[in-house]
Protein backbone atom coordinates (compact mmCIF):
# COMPACT_ATOMS: atom_id res chain seq x y z
CA UNK A 1 0.00 0.00 0.00
CA UNK A 2 2.68 2.46 1.03
CA UNK A 3 4.57 1.69 -2.11
CA UNK A 4 1.62 2.44 -4.29
CA UNK A 5 0.92 5.70 -2.54
CA UNK A 6 4.48 6.87 -2.98
CA UNK A 7 5.14 5.44 -6.42
CA UNK A 8 5.72 8.12 -9.00
CA UNK A 9 5.43 5.51 -11.72
CA UNK A 10 2.05 4.18 -10.72
CA UNK A 11 0.51 7.39 -9.45
CA UNK A 12 -0.35 8.91 -12.85
CA UNK A 13 -2.30 5.83 -13.81
CA UNK A 14 -4.25 5.95 -10.59
CA UNK A 15 -4.92 9.62 -11.16
CA UNK A 16 -6.34 9.12 -14.62
CA UNK A 17 -8.08 5.87 -13.71
CA UNK A 18 -11.50 7.50 -13.22
CA UNK A 19 -11.25 8.89 -16.71
CA UNK A 20 -10.23 5.58 -18.21
CA UNK A 21 -13.13 3.84 -16.46
CA UNK A 22 -15.56 6.50 -17.65
CA UNK A 23 -14.17 6.22 -21.14
CA UNK A 24 -14.55 2.46 -21.14
CA UNK A 25 -17.93 2.13 -19.45
CA UNK A 26 -19.75 5.14 -20.80
CA UNK A 27 -18.15 5.60 -24.21
CA UNK A 28 -16.31 2.60 -25.62
CA UNK A 29 -18.81 -0.03 -24.52
CA UNK A 30 -21.87 1.90 -25.71
CA UNK A 31 -20.15 2.64 -29.02
CA UNK A 32 -19.35 -1.02 -29.46
CA UNK A 33 -22.86 -1.92 -28.51
CA UNK A 34 -24.26 0.62 -30.89
CA UNK A 35 -22.15 -0.85 -33.63
CA UNK A 36 -23.43 -4.37 -32.95
CA UNK A 37 -27.05 -3.28 -32.63
CA UNK A 38 -26.82 -1.37 -35.89
CA UNK A 39 -26.80 -4.72 -37.68
CA UNK A 40 -29.77 -6.03 -35.72
CA UNK A 41 -33.46 -5.60 -35.40
CA UNK A 42 -34.21 -5.11 -31.71
CA UNK A 43 -37.69 -5.66 -30.32
CA UNK A 44 -38.41 -5.95 -26.60
CA UNK A 45 -34.84 -7.04 -25.94
CA UNK A 46 -34.79 -9.75 -28.62
CA UNK A 47 -32.21 -9.05 -31.30
CA UNK A 48 -32.11 -10.54 -34.78
CA UNK A 49 -29.16 -10.12 -37.12
CA UNK A 50 -30.27 -8.40 -40.32
CA UNK A 51 -26.97 -7.43 -41.96
CA UNK A 52 -26.68 -3.94 -43.36
CA UNK A 53 -30.43 -3.50 -43.72
CA UNK A 54 -30.55 -0.62 -41.28
CA UNK A 55 -27.81 1.22 -43.13
CA UNK A 56 -29.52 0.72 -46.46
CA UNK A 57 -32.80 2.02 -45.10
CA UNK A 58 -30.98 4.94 -43.56
CA UNK A 59 -29.31 5.79 -46.86
CA UNK A 60 -32.69 5.94 -48.57
CA UNK A 61 -34.54 7.75 -45.80
CA UNK A 62 -35.33 11.30 -46.91
CA UNK A 63 -36.07 12.35 -43.36
CA UNK A 64 -32.55 11.45 -42.26
CA UNK A 65 -31.00 13.59 -44.96
CA UNK A 66 -33.32 16.38 -44.07
CA UNK A 67 -32.38 16.14 -40.40
CA UNK A 68 -28.72 16.16 -41.36
CA UNK A 69 -29.28 19.15 -43.61
CA UNK A 70 -31.17 20.96 -40.84
CA UNK A 71 -28.37 20.36 -38.33
CA UNK A 72 -25.62 21.36 -40.73
CA UNK A 73 -27.50 24.46 -41.78
CA UNK A 74 -28.06 25.43 -38.18
CA UNK A 75 -24.45 24.78 -37.30
CA UNK A 76 -23.07 26.87 -40.15
CA UNK A 77 -25.47 29.73 -39.57
CA UNK A 78 -24.76 29.83 -35.84
CA UNK A 79 -21.06 30.11 -36.65
CA UNK A 80 -21.75 32.81 -39.23
CA UNK A 81 -23.74 34.78 -36.64
CA UNK A 82 -22.01 33.97 -33.41
CA UNK A 83 -18.46 34.79 -34.41
CA UNK A 84 -18.64 38.23 -36.05
CA UNK A 85 -21.46 39.76 -34.00
CA UNK A 86 -19.92 39.02 -30.60
CA UNK A 87 -16.54 40.05 -31.94
CA UNK A 88 -17.89 43.46 -32.88
CA UNK A 89 -19.71 43.80 -29.58
CA UNK A 90 -16.53 42.89 -27.74
CA UNK A 91 -14.63 45.50 -29.72
CA UNK A 92 -17.16 48.15 -28.77
CA UNK A 93 -16.96 47.23 -25.10
CA UNK A 94 -13.19 46.98 -25.21
CA UNK A 95 -12.85 50.49 -26.50
CA UNK A 96 -11.29 52.90 -24.01
CA UNK A 97 -14.23 55.14 -24.67
CA UNK A 98 -17.41 55.01 -22.81
CA UNK A 99 -19.15 54.83 -19.54
CA UNK A 100 -17.93 51.91 -17.39
CA UNK A 101 -21.33 51.55 -15.75
CA UNK A 102 -23.07 51.26 -19.06
CA UNK A 103 -20.55 48.65 -20.10
CA UNK A 104 -21.00 46.67 -16.89
CA UNK A 105 -24.75 46.75 -17.32
CA UNK A 106 -24.37 45.69 -20.93
CA UNK A 107 -22.15 42.75 -20.03
CA UNK A 108 -24.48 41.56 -17.30
CA UNK A 109 -27.60 41.90 -19.46
CA UNK A 110 -26.05 40.04 -22.34
CA UNK A 111 -24.75 37.34 -20.10
CA UNK A 112 -27.96 36.57 -18.23
CA UNK A 113 -29.59 34.72 -21.15
CA UNK A 114 -26.80 32.13 -20.96
CA UNK A 115 -27.98 31.32 -17.46
CA UNK A 116 -31.49 30.61 -18.64
CA UNK A 117 -32.16 26.93 -19.20
CA UNK A 118 -33.10 25.91 -22.72
CA UNK A 119 -36.40 24.63 -21.38
CA UNK A 120 -37.36 28.05 -20.05
CA UNK A 121 -35.83 29.91 -22.98
CA UNK A 122 -37.63 27.62 -25.41
CA UNK A 123 -40.97 28.20 -23.73
CA UNK A 124 -40.48 31.95 -23.81
CA UNK A 125 -39.35 32.02 -27.44
CA UNK A 126 -42.22 29.78 -28.45
CA UNK A 127 -44.56 32.36 -26.96
CA UNK A 128 -42.72 35.32 -28.43
CA UNK A 129 -42.79 33.72 -31.88
CA UNK A 130 -46.41 32.61 -31.56
CA UNK A 131 -48.68 32.66 -34.58
CA UNK A 132 -51.18 35.04 -33.06
CA UNK A 133 -50.93 38.56 -34.45
CA UNK A 134 -50.65 39.96 -30.94
CA UNK A 135 -47.50 37.98 -30.19
CA UNK A 136 -44.32 40.02 -29.78
CA UNK A 137 -42.53 39.14 -32.97
CA UNK A 138 -45.66 39.71 -34.97
CA UNK A 139 -46.03 43.10 -33.35
CA UNK A 140 -42.47 43.82 -34.39
CA UNK A 141 -43.25 42.58 -37.89
CA UNK A 142 -46.30 44.80 -37.98
CA UNK A 143 -44.24 47.77 -36.84
CA UNK A 144 -42.00 47.25 -39.85
CA UNK A 145 -45.03 46.96 -42.04
CA UNK A 146 -45.41 43.25 -42.77
CA UNK A 147 -46.89 40.20 -41.11
CA UNK A 148 -48.50 38.62 -39.29
CA UNK A 149 -45.94 35.89 -39.84
CA UNK A 150 -46.68 32.26 -39.01
CA UNK A 151 -43.23 31.90 -37.54
CA UNK A 152 -42.97 28.32 -36.45
CA UNK A 153 -45.16 26.97 -39.20
CA UNK A 154 -42.78 27.76 -42.02
CA UNK A 155 -39.28 26.62 -42.69
CA UNK A 156 -37.27 29.81 -42.97
CA UNK A 157 -39.13 31.75 -40.30
CA UNK A 158 -38.86 28.73 -38.01
CA UNK A 159 -35.13 28.75 -38.60
CA UNK A 160 -35.07 32.45 -37.80
CA UNK A 161 -36.69 31.69 -34.44
CA UNK A 162 -34.15 28.96 -33.71
CA UNK A 163 -31.26 31.23 -34.63
CA UNK A 164 -32.72 34.07 -32.60
CA UNK A 165 -32.79 31.74 -29.62
CA UNK A 166 -29.17 30.72 -30.20
CA UNK A 167 -28.10 34.32 -30.69
CA UNK A 168 -29.92 35.39 -27.56
CA UNK A 169 -28.42 32.70 -25.38
CA UNK A 170 -24.87 32.74 -26.68
CA UNK A 171 -23.97 36.28 -27.81
CA UNK A 172 -23.12 37.27 -24.27
CA UNK A 173 -20.86 34.33 -23.65
CA UNK A 174 -19.07 34.66 -26.95
CA UNK A 175 -18.66 38.38 -26.41
CA UNK A 176 -16.94 37.61 -23.10
CA UNK A 177 -14.67 35.12 -24.88
CA UNK A 178 -13.62 37.70 -27.43
CA UNK A 179 -13.29 40.38 -24.82
CA UNK A 180 -10.93 38.18 -22.82
CA UNK A 181 -9.03 37.42 -26.00
CA UNK A 182 -8.74 41.09 -26.93
CA UNK A 183 -7.56 42.06 -23.51
CA UNK A 184 -4.69 39.62 -23.77
CA UNK A 185 -3.37 41.23 -26.95
CA UNK A 186 -0.39 43.42 -26.00
CA UNK A 187 -1.12 47.12 -26.41
CA UNK A 188 2.28 47.64 -28.03
CA UNK A 189 1.05 45.92 -31.18
CA UNK A 190 -1.50 48.63 -31.68
CA UNK A 191 0.88 51.38 -30.79
CA UNK A 192 3.40 50.12 -33.30
CA UNK A 193 0.72 49.83 -35.93
CA UNK A 194 -0.49 53.35 -35.23
CA UNK A 195 2.98 54.70 -35.66
CA UNK A 196 3.12 52.94 -39.02
CA UNK A 197 -0.07 54.77 -39.85
CA UNK A 198 -2.53 51.90 -39.79
CA UNK A 199 -6.16 52.91 -39.45
CA UNK A 200 -8.37 51.52 -36.72
CA UNK A 201 -10.08 49.31 -39.20
CA UNK A 202 -6.76 48.03 -40.51
CA UNK A 203 -5.63 47.44 -36.96
CA UNK A 204 -8.76 45.40 -36.35
CA UNK A 205 -8.14 43.35 -39.49
CA UNK A 206 -4.41 42.89 -39.11
CA UNK A 207 -3.86 42.83 -35.38
CA UNK A 208 -7.04 42.04 -33.51
CA UNK A 209 -8.36 39.24 -35.69
CA UNK A 210 -5.07 37.33 -36.14
CA UNK A 211 -4.37 37.58 -32.43
CA UNK A 212 -7.85 36.34 -31.66
CA UNK A 213 -7.24 33.16 -33.60
CA UNK A 214 -7.13 30.88 -30.53
CA UNK A 215 -10.43 32.36 -29.35
CA UNK A 216 -11.95 32.01 -32.79
CA UNK A 217 -10.81 28.41 -32.97
CA UNK A 218 -12.36 27.76 -29.60
CA UNK A 219 -15.66 29.49 -30.41
CA UNK A 220 -15.93 27.69 -33.71
CA UNK A 221 -15.20 24.38 -31.99
CA UNK A 222 -17.96 24.82 -29.44
CA UNK A 223 -20.30 26.08 -32.14
CA UNK A 224 -19.68 22.99 -34.24
CA UNK A 225 -20.37 20.89 -31.21
CA UNK A 226 -23.41 22.91 -30.21
CA UNK A 227 -24.78 22.95 -33.74
CA UNK A 228 -24.53 19.22 -34.26
CA UNK A 229 -25.78 18.41 -30.78
CA UNK A 230 -28.72 20.79 -30.97
CA UNK A 231 -31.99 19.16 -30.04
CA UNK A 232 -33.61 20.68 -27.01
CA UNK A 233 -33.96 24.15 -28.55
CA UNK A 234 -36.06 22.74 -31.34
CA UNK A 235 -37.85 20.32 -29.02
CA UNK A 236 -39.01 23.17 -26.80
CA UNK A 237 -39.74 25.64 -29.57
CA UNK A 238 -41.96 23.18 -31.42
CA UNK A 239 -43.33 21.73 -28.15
CA UNK A 240 -42.15 18.28 -29.14
CA UNK A 241 -40.12 16.45 -31.69
CA UNK A 242 -42.61 16.88 -34.53
CA UNK A 243 -42.57 20.01 -36.60
CA UNK A 244 -44.29 20.91 -39.86
CA UNK A 245 -42.50 19.07 -42.66
CA UNK A 246 -39.83 18.13 -40.11
CA UNK A 247 -38.40 21.60 -40.51
CA UNK A 248 -37.12 21.61 -36.93
CA UNK A 249 -35.88 18.04 -36.87
CA UNK A 250 -32.17 17.73 -36.05
CA UNK A 251 -29.96 14.68 -36.19
CA UNK A 252 -30.30 14.16 -32.46
CA UNK A 253 -34.05 14.61 -32.79
CA UNK A 254 -34.03 12.00 -35.52
CA UNK A 255 -32.06 9.67 -33.29
CA UNK A 256 -34.54 10.29 -30.49
CA UNK A 257 -37.50 9.71 -32.77
CA UNK A 258 -36.19 6.45 -34.16
CA UNK A 259 -34.81 5.06 -30.94
CA UNK A 260 -37.24 6.30 -28.34
CA UNK A 261 -40.46 7.32 -30.06
CA UNK A 262 -40.54 4.56 -32.64
CA UNK A 263 -38.65 2.05 -30.55
CA UNK A 264 -36.46 0.97 -33.45
CA UNK A 265 -33.23 0.59 -31.50
CA UNK A 266 -31.36 -1.27 -34.21
CA UNK A 267 -32.06 1.39 -36.79
CA UNK A 268 -31.34 4.16 -34.28
CA UNK A 269 -28.00 2.54 -33.53
CA UNK A 270 -27.13 2.71 -37.21
CA UNK A 271 -28.03 6.39 -37.10
CA UNK A 272 -25.81 6.84 -34.04
CA UNK A 273 -22.87 5.12 -35.73
CA UNK A 274 -23.20 7.23 -38.86
CA UNK A 275 -23.47 10.43 -36.82
CA UNK A 276 -20.43 9.48 -34.80
CA UNK A 277 -18.43 8.96 -37.98
CA UNK A 278 -19.58 12.32 -39.34
CA UNK A 279 -18.80 14.18 -36.13
CA UNK A 280 -15.42 12.54 -35.74
CA UNK A 281 -14.53 13.37 -39.32
CA UNK A 282 -15.50 17.01 -38.93
CA UNK A 283 -13.76 17.36 -35.58
CA UNK A 284 -10.58 15.54 -36.45
CA UNK A 285 -10.20 17.47 -39.66
CA UNK A 286 -10.82 20.69 -37.86
CA UNK A 287 -8.64 19.98 -34.84
CA UNK A 288 -5.76 18.89 -37.02
CA UNK A 289 -6.18 21.80 -39.39
CA UNK A 290 -6.25 24.29 -36.52
CA UNK A 291 -3.21 22.70 -34.94
CA UNK A 292 -4.95 22.00 -31.66
CA UNK A 293 -3.73 18.43 -31.45
CA UNK A 294 -0.11 19.24 -31.94
CA UNK A 295 -0.26 21.91 -29.35
CA UNK A 296 -2.25 20.15 -26.65
CA UNK A 297 -1.07 16.60 -26.92
CA UNK A 298 2.59 17.50 -26.98
Amino acid sequence: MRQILYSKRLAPYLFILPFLVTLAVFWIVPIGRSFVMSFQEVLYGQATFIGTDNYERLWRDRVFWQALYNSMRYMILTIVLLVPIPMVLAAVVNSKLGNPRVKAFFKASLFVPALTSVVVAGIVFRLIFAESDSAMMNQVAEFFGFGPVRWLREDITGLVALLALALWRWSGVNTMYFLAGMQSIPTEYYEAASIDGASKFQQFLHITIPNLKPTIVYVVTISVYGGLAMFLESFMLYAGNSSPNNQGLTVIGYLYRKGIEENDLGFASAVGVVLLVIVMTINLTYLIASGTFKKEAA
Partner: protein
Amino acid sequence: MAAQPPTTVRGGSAPQESGTGSTPPDRTTAGPRRLSPRAATWIQSGFLLLIAAIALVPLVAIFIGTFQDGNDVIRRGMTFDVDVSTLSLDNYVLLFTDSGPYFRWFANTLLLTVAQVAGTLLVSSFVAYGFAMYHFKGKTLSFIMVLLLITVPFEMLMLPLYVQVNDMGLADTYLIIVLPFLAAAVTIFFFRQYFLGIPKEILEAGRVDGVTEFGIFFRLVLPISKPAMAAMAILNGMLCWNNFLWPLLVLRTPEKFTLPIGLNTLLTPYGNNYELLIIGAFFSLIPILILFLAFQRFFIEGITAGAVKG
Protein backbone atom coordinates in the same frame (compact mmCIF):
# COMPACT_ATOMS: atom_id res chain seq x y z
CA MET B 1 -3.84 48.12 -20.06
CA ALA B 2 -6.51 47.06 -22.45
CA ALA B 3 -5.65 47.05 -26.08
CA GLN B 4 -7.59 49.37 -28.22
CA PRO B 5 -9.14 47.96 -31.30
CA PRO B 6 -11.51 50.26 -33.08
CA THR B 7 -14.98 50.53 -31.74
CA THR B 8 -17.65 49.26 -33.99
CA VAL B 9 -18.62 51.13 -37.08
CA ARG B 10 -22.33 50.91 -37.30
CA GLY B 11 -23.73 50.89 -40.77
CA GLY B 12 -20.35 52.05 -41.91
CA SER B 13 -21.27 55.63 -41.20
CA ALA B 14 -20.55 56.48 -37.61
CA PRO B 15 -16.85 56.27 -36.99
CA GLN B 16 -15.83 56.75 -33.43
CA GLU B 17 -12.61 57.86 -32.14
CA SER B 18 -10.67 57.23 -29.07
CA GLY B 19 -10.48 59.83 -26.38
CA THR B 20 -6.98 59.09 -25.26
CA GLY B 21 -4.36 61.62 -25.96
CA SER B 22 -1.66 59.12 -26.80
CA THR B 23 -3.50 57.73 -29.78
CA PRO B 24 -2.10 58.85 -33.09
CA PRO B 25 -4.25 60.47 -35.73
CA ASP B 26 -7.37 58.58 -36.46
CA ARG B 27 -7.67 57.20 -39.95
CA THR B 28 -10.92 55.33 -39.97
CA THR B 29 -11.82 54.14 -43.40
CA ALA B 30 -15.51 54.69 -42.87
CA GLY B 31 -15.95 58.33 -43.58
CA PRO B 32 -14.61 61.79 -43.34
CA ARG B 33 -16.84 63.00 -40.51
CA ARG B 34 -15.25 63.04 -37.09
CA LEU B 35 -17.04 62.97 -33.81
CA SER B 36 -16.00 64.43 -30.55
CA PRO B 37 -15.16 61.81 -27.89
CA ARG B 38 -18.21 62.91 -25.97
CA ALA B 39 -20.53 62.27 -28.87
CA ALA B 40 -18.81 58.97 -29.58
CA THR B 41 -19.35 57.92 -25.98
CA TRP B 42 -23.00 58.80 -26.23
CA ILE B 43 -23.41 56.81 -29.41
CA GLN B 44 -21.56 53.89 -27.91
CA SER B 45 -23.63 53.95 -24.73
CA GLY B 46 -26.84 54.23 -26.69
CA PHE B 47 -25.86 51.29 -28.83
CA LEU B 48 -24.90 49.11 -25.86
CA LEU B 49 -28.04 50.00 -23.95
CA LEU B 50 -30.20 49.18 -26.95
CA ILE B 51 -28.63 45.74 -27.31
CA ALA B 52 -28.92 45.17 -23.56
CA ALA B 53 -32.58 46.12 -23.67
CA ILE B 54 -33.25 43.67 -26.50
CA ALA B 55 -31.46 40.93 -24.59
CA LEU B 56 -33.63 41.55 -21.56
CA VAL B 57 -36.97 41.52 -23.43
CA PRO B 58 -37.58 37.77 -23.07
CA LEU B 59 -36.87 37.89 -19.36
CA VAL B 60 -39.12 40.87 -18.82
CA ALA B 61 -41.77 39.11 -20.89
CA ILE B 62 -41.75 36.01 -18.72
CA PHE B 63 -41.76 38.17 -15.60
CA ILE B 64 -44.87 39.96 -16.83
CA GLY B 65 -46.24 36.57 -17.81
CA THR B 66 -46.21 35.51 -14.19
CA PHE B 67 -48.99 38.04 -13.56
CA GLN B 68 -51.06 37.04 -16.57
CA ASP B 69 -53.62 34.36 -17.19
CA GLY B 70 -51.65 31.30 -18.28
CA ASN B 71 -54.13 30.04 -20.85
CA ASP B 72 -54.31 33.44 -22.41
CA VAL B 73 -50.53 33.66 -22.70
CA ILE B 74 -50.33 30.25 -24.34
CA ARG B 75 -53.11 31.10 -26.78
CA ARG B 76 -52.04 34.57 -27.78
CA GLY B 77 -48.33 34.41 -27.13
CA MET B 78 -46.31 36.93 -25.17
CA THR B 79 -47.11 40.41 -26.26
CA PHE B 80 -45.93 43.99 -25.88
CA ASP B 81 -49.54 44.97 -25.65
CA VAL B 82 -50.18 44.02 -22.03
CA ASP B 83 -53.53 44.92 -20.54
CA VAL B 84 -52.56 46.09 -17.08
CA SER B 85 -56.04 45.58 -15.67
CA THR B 86 -55.81 41.80 -16.25
CA LEU B 87 -52.64 41.38 -14.22
CA SER B 88 -53.00 39.61 -10.90
CA LEU B 89 -51.11 37.76 -8.24
CA ASP B 90 -53.16 34.58 -8.75
CA ASN B 91 -50.22 32.64 -10.13
CA TYR B 92 -48.13 33.48 -7.10
CA VAL B 93 -50.89 32.26 -4.83
CA LEU B 94 -51.07 29.09 -6.91
CA LEU B 95 -47.31 28.57 -6.79
CA PHE B 96 -47.12 28.81 -3.04
CA THR B 97 -50.33 27.02 -2.16
CA ASP B 98 -51.15 24.49 -4.83
CA SER B 99 -48.20 23.84 -7.08
CA GLY B 100 -48.14 20.08 -6.60
CA PRO B 101 -44.64 18.69 -6.90
CA TYR B 102 -43.02 21.94 -8.05
CA PHE B 103 -40.93 22.58 -4.97
CA ARG B 104 -40.03 18.93 -4.81
CA TRP B 105 -38.54 19.28 -8.32
CA PHE B 106 -36.78 22.35 -7.09
CA ALA B 107 -35.25 20.52 -4.15
CA ASN B 108 -34.31 17.54 -6.32
CA THR B 109 -32.53 19.75 -8.79
CA LEU B 110 -30.71 21.50 -6.00
CA LEU B 111 -29.56 18.24 -4.44
CA LEU B 112 -28.53 16.78 -7.76
CA THR B 113 -26.68 19.93 -8.76
CA VAL B 114 -24.75 20.11 -5.51
CA ALA B 115 -23.84 16.43 -5.58
CA GLN B 116 -22.86 16.47 -9.22
CA VAL B 117 -20.78 19.63 -8.98
CA ALA B 118 -18.95 18.37 -5.89
CA GLY B 119 -18.30 15.00 -7.51
CA THR B 120 -17.23 16.40 -10.85
CA LEU B 121 -14.84 18.91 -9.33
CA LEU B 122 -13.20 16.28 -7.20
CA VAL B 123 -12.90 13.56 -9.82
CA SER B 124 -12.06 15.78 -12.77
CA SER B 125 -9.38 17.75 -10.96
CA PHE B 126 -7.95 14.45 -9.73
CA VAL B 127 -7.68 13.16 -13.28
CA ALA B 128 -6.39 16.46 -14.62
CA TYR B 129 -3.62 16.42 -12.05
CA GLY B 130 -2.40 13.13 -13.46
CA PHE B 131 -2.29 14.59 -16.94
CA ALA B 132 -0.63 17.81 -15.88
CA MET B 133 2.06 16.64 -13.52
CA TYR B 134 3.38 13.35 -14.79
CA HIS B 135 4.95 11.88 -17.84
CA PHE B 136 3.85 8.35 -18.47
CA LYS B 137 3.34 5.85 -21.19
CA GLY B 138 0.05 6.24 -23.00
CA LYS B 139 -0.40 9.82 -21.84
CA THR B 140 -0.63 11.29 -25.31
CA LEU B 141 -3.21 8.78 -26.45
CA SER B 142 -5.26 9.20 -23.28
CA PHE B 143 -5.20 12.93 -23.61
CA ILE B 144 -6.23 12.79 -27.23
CA MET B 145 -9.22 10.83 -25.99
CA VAL B 146 -10.03 13.67 -23.61
CA LEU B 147 -9.90 16.11 -26.50
CA LEU B 148 -12.08 13.88 -28.65
CA LEU B 149 -14.63 13.45 -25.91
CA ILE B 150 -14.95 17.21 -25.67
CA THR B 151 -16.08 17.28 -29.27
CA VAL B 152 -18.45 14.32 -29.41
CA PRO B 153 -21.99 15.13 -28.32
CA PHE B 154 -23.01 12.81 -25.53
CA GLU B 155 -26.50 12.66 -27.05
CA MET B 156 -25.20 10.50 -29.86
CA LEU B 157 -24.47 7.72 -27.42
CA MET B 158 -27.51 8.05 -25.25
CA LEU B 159 -29.44 5.14 -26.73
CA PRO B 160 -26.90 2.34 -26.29
CA LEU B 161 -25.98 3.85 -22.96
CA TYR B 162 -29.61 3.81 -22.00
CA VAL B 163 -29.89 0.13 -22.88
CA GLN B 164 -26.79 -0.50 -20.84
CA VAL B 165 -28.16 1.41 -17.87
CA ASN B 166 -31.20 -0.81 -17.88
CA ASP B 167 -29.00 -3.90 -17.91
CA MET B 168 -27.06 -2.52 -14.98
CA GLY B 169 -30.29 -1.98 -13.09
CA LEU B 170 -29.53 1.70 -12.65
CA ALA B 171 -32.52 3.15 -14.45
CA ASP B 172 -34.49 5.69 -12.45
CA THR B 173 -31.60 6.47 -10.10
CA TYR B 174 -29.81 9.75 -9.53
CA LEU B 175 -26.56 7.85 -9.49
CA ILE B 176 -26.65 7.16 -13.21
CA ILE B 177 -27.44 10.79 -14.00
CA VAL B 178 -24.23 11.79 -12.28
CA LEU B 179 -21.87 8.90 -12.92
CA PRO B 180 -21.07 9.38 -16.62
CA PHE B 181 -20.14 13.01 -16.03
CA LEU B 182 -17.84 12.84 -13.01
CA ALA B 183 -14.75 12.62 -15.19
CA ALA B 184 -15.94 15.40 -17.48
CA ALA B 185 -13.65 16.03 -20.42
CA VAL B 186 -14.09 19.81 -20.51
CA THR B 187 -13.48 20.14 -16.79
CA ILE B 188 -10.44 17.87 -16.96
CA PHE B 189 -9.06 19.95 -19.77
CA PHE B 190 -9.53 23.15 -17.85
CA PHE B 191 -7.97 21.87 -14.62
CA ARG B 192 -5.03 20.51 -16.55
CA GLN B 193 -4.37 23.94 -17.98
CA TYR B 194 -4.54 25.40 -14.52
CA PHE B 195 -2.27 22.80 -12.95
CA LEU B 196 0.30 23.25 -15.69
CA GLY B 197 0.79 26.75 -14.33
CA ILE B 198 1.59 25.52 -10.83
CA PRO B 199 5.31 25.47 -10.09
CA LYS B 200 6.67 21.94 -9.90
CA GLU B 201 8.76 22.94 -6.88
CA ILE B 202 5.68 22.58 -4.72
CA LEU B 203 5.52 18.92 -5.65
CA GLU B 204 9.18 18.35 -4.98
CA ALA B 205 8.93 20.07 -1.63
CA GLY B 206 6.02 17.80 -0.76
CA ARG B 207 7.95 14.71 -1.76
CA VAL B 208 10.90 15.78 0.30
CA ASP B 209 8.54 16.12 3.26
CA GLY B 210 7.38 12.55 2.67
CA VAL B 211 3.88 13.34 1.45
CA THR B 212 2.33 10.71 -0.84
CA GLU B 213 1.62 11.57 -4.47
CA PHE B 214 -2.05 11.80 -3.58
CA GLY B 215 -1.33 13.77 -0.46
CA ILE B 216 0.47 16.31 -2.60
CA PHE B 217 -2.64 16.69 -4.72
CA PHE B 218 -5.11 16.90 -1.87
CA ARG B 219 -3.02 18.85 0.63
CA LEU B 220 -0.82 21.07 -1.46
CA VAL B 221 -2.38 21.53 -4.86
CA LEU B 222 -6.13 21.61 -4.24
CA PRO B 223 -5.94 24.36 -1.61
CA ILE B 224 -4.26 26.69 -4.08
CA SER B 225 -6.74 25.81 -6.84
CA LYS B 226 -9.72 27.65 -5.45
CA PRO B 227 -10.10 30.07 -8.37
CA ALA B 228 -10.21 27.17 -10.81
CA MET B 229 -12.66 25.36 -8.55
CA ALA B 230 -14.94 28.36 -8.43
CA ALA B 231 -14.91 28.73 -12.19
CA MET B 232 -15.64 25.07 -12.81
CA ALA B 233 -18.26 24.91 -10.06
CA ILE B 234 -20.19 27.61 -11.85
CA LEU B 235 -19.84 26.07 -15.29
CA ASN B 236 -20.84 22.61 -14.12
CA GLY B 237 -23.51 23.93 -11.81
CA MET B 238 -25.21 25.67 -14.70
CA LEU B 239 -25.01 22.66 -16.95
CA CYS B 240 -26.40 20.48 -14.21
CA TRP B 241 -29.18 22.83 -13.16
CA ASN B 242 -30.37 22.89 -16.76
CA ASN B 243 -29.64 19.27 -17.68
CA PHE B 244 -32.55 17.76 -19.58
CA LEU B 245 -32.22 14.95 -22.05
CA TRP B 246 -30.30 12.35 -20.09
CA PRO B 247 -32.40 12.73 -16.91
CA LEU B 248 -35.51 12.64 -19.10
CA LEU B 249 -34.48 9.26 -20.44
CA VAL B 250 -33.36 7.81 -17.17
CA LEU B 251 -35.91 9.07 -14.65
CA ARG B 252 -39.37 7.56 -14.43
CA THR B 253 -40.79 8.37 -11.03
CA PRO B 254 -42.35 11.83 -10.96
CA GLU B 255 -41.13 12.34 -7.39
CA LYS B 256 -37.59 12.23 -8.73
CA PHE B 257 -38.06 14.70 -11.57
CA THR B 258 -35.85 17.72 -11.86
CA LEU B 259 -37.03 21.21 -12.70
CA PRO B 260 -36.46 21.16 -16.46
CA ILE B 261 -38.21 17.82 -16.80
CA GLY B 262 -41.00 18.81 -14.48
CA LEU B 263 -41.57 22.10 -16.29
CA ASN B 264 -41.70 20.28 -19.57
CA THR B 265 -44.43 18.02 -18.20
CA LEU B 266 -46.54 21.12 -17.67
CA LEU B 267 -46.38 21.99 -21.35
CA THR B 268 -49.31 19.88 -22.47
CA PRO B 269 -52.70 20.81 -23.86
CA TYR B 270 -54.41 18.28 -21.60
CA GLY B 271 -53.01 19.45 -18.30
CA ASN B 272 -54.63 22.75 -17.31
CA ASN B 273 -51.39 23.93 -15.76
CA TYR B 274 -50.13 26.77 -17.89
CA GLU B 275 -50.31 29.17 -14.94
CA LEU B 276 -47.82 27.03 -13.11
CA LEU B 277 -45.70 26.60 -16.23
CA ILE B 278 -45.00 30.31 -16.65
CA ILE B 279 -44.42 31.17 -13.05
CA GLY B 280 -42.57 27.91 -12.46
CA ALA B 281 -40.26 28.65 -15.36
CA PHE B 282 -39.64 32.11 -14.00
CA PHE B 283 -38.89 30.89 -10.50
CA SER B 284 -36.47 28.29 -11.80
CA LEU B 285 -34.30 31.18 -12.96
CA ILE B 286 -34.17 32.89 -9.61
CA PRO B 287 -31.47 30.90 -7.78
CA ILE B 288 -29.08 31.19 -10.65
CA LEU B 289 -29.86 34.88 -11.13
CA ILE B 290 -29.21 35.59 -7.48
CA LEU B 291 -25.93 33.71 -7.63
CA PHE B 292 -25.02 35.57 -10.77
CA LEU B 293 -25.68 38.99 -9.31
CA ALA B 294 -23.67 38.07 -6.23
CA PHE B 295 -20.72 36.46 -7.99
CA GLN B 296 -20.86 38.01 -11.44
CA ARG B 297 -17.12 38.08 -11.90
CA PHE B 298 -16.74 34.39 -11.12
CA PHE B 299 -19.55 33.52 -13.48
CA ILE B 300 -17.98 35.28 -16.39
CA GLU B 301 -14.61 33.75 -15.57
CA GLY B 302 -16.16 30.33 -15.10
CA ILE B 303 -17.96 30.30 -18.39
CA THR B 304 -15.18 31.82 -20.39
CA ALA B 305 -12.51 29.83 -18.60
CA GLY B 306 -12.07 27.31 -21.39
CA ALA B 307 -11.32 29.91 -24.00
CA VAL B 308 -9.12 32.26 -22.09
CA LYS B 309 -5.94 30.36 -22.50
CA GLY B 310 -4.73 30.60 -26.01
